[in-house]
């Protein structure tokens, strides 16, 4: 029968296609690092965004900062600034800049000079001065610096010579150097900015970035990938893979699958449920560090009835944090009592904490005049973060707990960009979100999360403003004496326990999963991933 032969031929050819399986995994496939990231960066300038997706994609890859954190000790080390001096009154900082640090040469920009003081001044003034020509470009919001009130505290930035810059503060700030070492304090190219201004396309500065970092930006396609090529003239002369590619993969299960098949060499945010699988597979590596982060449940204190501390307290009593820890973090987190994790020097082990007590919750609700059947929303962030690996699941759990005290919960979620936009507008009743510290200073928790100044910048998710609180955390910055600062932060913790603008839930460990072929991967103690100096050997 002829058709039978035909079928046979078809099958044989099919088998042949699949038999030529597995392209050779050497040579060419060694030439680039594939990193499966979790989401789209908003732009390529971390000054403009506190989301770690944005800083992961740019901060340590495209840019360098004046200072850096040592990957092991977390201490501040020189980077673009080769040395620095602090005056005795703690108000003047003088930075000596490294010479011969070339900017990227790409097909959209060719630098004519290496990095110098002008670039540093430009980068700082952009977010500092509202009248700066680049301040309003790309939205004019600099959430990290706004939330810290840094722009107001810097009185003056002076160019002493081409490689020396002096910064004068109006008040002492013991966390100033740490802030300059964070992911957000990147150094941009002044020459490039000027060229763009002449072309009347200033917003390109944040979308076609030029920096001094180990990788050059090549191309970005939303929802698909970001390509980088190595910056061969980088001042550290790192040996690293010629290419770096971010494969944007929002689903964590898919990221793990791609790690297993070798389509990714490293992945962002392995899900807590999957850690055991990664540990079990010998071709994979799982690195772990205690994280400086906190996952919390913040109430929108501008919306009644959440402006009433009793209501907030009642809701806090209604949920069982330990259960949330087990079900959502799978033992990869510790219970949060206050804002600071145990890894911080100002951690207070005996801070007061709300225990699970639905009876008290019901009483408090009754006292506050909340009828059973009261409806509220819990916003669950749509992406995984170490501090909250599955907000939707946590919200579902809390939905049931709150149902027990007669509160009906609607769970709300949007894509990440929209989600944060609506949060900033204050459309939520309450939200499950969190914070990763950008430097080791406790101020980096207290100030961005709950100070009045952090409301417009959108990091104060509780929209909570308390003068006493602001006064206390400002007082803490006036001294270098850690014991004194610690005592002040304990008073802050007590205030927070009385007011409960947010319910602290967990401090998570930070994990990074990658294939053994990657050599030189390190977990950055604060902030984002870095691929400078990472190589791939199959």
């Amino acid at each position: 029968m002829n058709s039978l032969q035909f079928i046979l031929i078809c099958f044989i050819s099919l088998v042949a296609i699949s038999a030529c399986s597995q392209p050779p995994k050497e040579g060419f496939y060694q030439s680039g690092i594939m990193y499966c990231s979790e989401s789209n960066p908003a732009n390529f300038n971390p000054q403009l965004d506190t989301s770690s997706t944005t800083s992961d994609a740019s901060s340590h890859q495209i840019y360098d900062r004046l200072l850096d954190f040592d990957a092991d000790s977390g201490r501040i080390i020189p980077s673009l600034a080769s040395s620095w001096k602090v005056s005795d009154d703690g108000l003047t900082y003088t930075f000596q800049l490294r010479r011969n640090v070339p900017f990227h040469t790409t097909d959209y920009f060719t630098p004519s000079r290496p990095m110098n003081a002008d670039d540093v001044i430009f980068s700082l003034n952009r977010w500092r001065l509202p009248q700066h020509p680049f301040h309003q470009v790309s939205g004019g919001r600099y959430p990290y610096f706004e939330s810290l009130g840094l722009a107001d505290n810097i009185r003056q930035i002076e160019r002493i010579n081409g490689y020396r810059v002096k910064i004068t503060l109006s008040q002492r700030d013991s966390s100033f150097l740490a802030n300059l070492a964070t992911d957000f304090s990147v150094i941009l190219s002044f020459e490039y900015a000027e060229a763009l201004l002449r072309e009347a396309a200033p917003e390109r500065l944040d979308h076609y970035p030029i920096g001094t970092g180990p990788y050059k930006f090549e191309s970005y396609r939303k929802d698909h990938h970001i390509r980088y090529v190595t910056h061969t003239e980088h001042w550290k002369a790192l040996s690293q893979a010629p290419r770096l590619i971010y494969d944007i993969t929002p689903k964590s299960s898919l990221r793990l699958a791609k790690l297993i098949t070798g389509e990714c060499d490293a992945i962002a945010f392995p899900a807590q449920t999957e850690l055991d699988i990664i540990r079990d597979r010998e071709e994979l590596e799982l690195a772990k560090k205690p994280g400086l982060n906190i996952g919390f449940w913040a109430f929108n204190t501008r919306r009644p009835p959440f402006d009433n501390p009793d209501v907030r307290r009642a809701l806090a009593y209604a949920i069982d944090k330990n259960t949330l820890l087990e079900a959502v973090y799978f033992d990869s987190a510790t219970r949060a009592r206050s804002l600071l994790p145990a890894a911080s020097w100002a951690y207070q082990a005996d801070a007061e904490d709300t225990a699970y007590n639905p009876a008290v919750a019901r009483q408090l609700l009754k006292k506050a005049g909340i009828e059973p059947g009261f409806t509220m929303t819990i916003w669950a962030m749509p992406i995984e973060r170490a501090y909250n690996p599955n907000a939707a699941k946590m919200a579902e759990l809390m939905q049931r707990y709150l149902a027990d005290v007669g509160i009906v919960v609607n769970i709300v979620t949007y894509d990440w960009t929209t989600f944060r936009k609506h949060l900033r507008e204050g459309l939520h009743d309450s939200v499950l979100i969190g914070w990763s510290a950008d430097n080791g200073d406790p101020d980096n928790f207290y100030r961005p999360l709950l100070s009045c100044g952090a409301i417009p910048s959108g990091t104060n998710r509780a929209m909570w403003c308390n003068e006493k609180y602001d006064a206390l955390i400002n007082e803490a910055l006036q001294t270098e004496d850690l014991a004194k600062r610690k005592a002040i932060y304990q008073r802050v913790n007590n205030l927070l326990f009385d007011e409960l603008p947010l319910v602290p839930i967990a401090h998570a460990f930070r994990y990074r999963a990658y294939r053994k072929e990657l050599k030189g991967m390190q977990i950055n103690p604060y902030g984002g991933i870095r691929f400078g100096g990472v190589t791939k050997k199959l």
Partner: protein
Amino acid sequence: MSQFSLYEEESHPTPLQRTWREFRASHIAFVGLVVLAVFFFFALFAPLVVPYDPIQQNLNSLLIPPSWERNGTIDHLFGTDALGRDVFSRIIYGCRVTFGSSLLLVIIAMGLGVTIGTVAGMLSGVRSSVVNHLLDALMAIPTLLIAIIIVAVVGTGLVNSMWAITLALTPQFIHYTRTFVRSEMKKEYVLASRLDGANAWQLFTHSILPNMIEMLVVQGTLALSIAIIDVSALGFLNLGAQPPLPELGAILADGLDVAYLAPWNVALPGLSIFLMVLAINIVGDGLRSALRKRVSR
């Protein structure tokens, strides 16, 4: 005179009975029908069958494997999911939601389709042609696309996704009805009734509809299998049923997050959808061949 009636001994099975006999003769089709009946039973009596509340979370028993595995317990026949919910109960309820909503929307689509199709079939000329061509265009638009648009306009939810699928299924009912009515209108028996003075409504209820039922049942089973796949696909894509509502596609999507740890969370809901669709297809196929055989004999 001997008292005998020529016809007394013989029974004349109605066409329906004859179809049933033909259908029963095929064992596979019969098995399919039984499986379908089981699903139907689940859909009707889910609350009586399930051992647990399908949305009751139990944090002491997260991700317990199914009972046939080494670590499984008999308490949870199909194991539990990442929130400690009983997978068996969820699947039974999932069948109820998926199957029930599909059945409902097919009936709605059928009702709409038959109404419009009959009107179009009894009309003639330009109007009918316009209706026909527009429907052809509508039929060509993928269900998923219609669903996406509807979700964008009115938001996600099981009911909205049901509307989308209804909208996508209706045209084919219109098409078949219209064709059927047109060919039927040309037949003599219709002409006879018409000469007797029957109006359009009487023509439809007395002459055309009874003849159309078989066609509708066959088309209905086909549409049902498509509806189930579509409802679960939309649930899977998070455009249809929203958690915690147990819908098979949504359960499957939930299970995806723990696919390596707990593969049964992906395998079992998928298998249920598959079996449900298979059973419907087998029954539909059996029906069609039974009808074909009846006509050819």
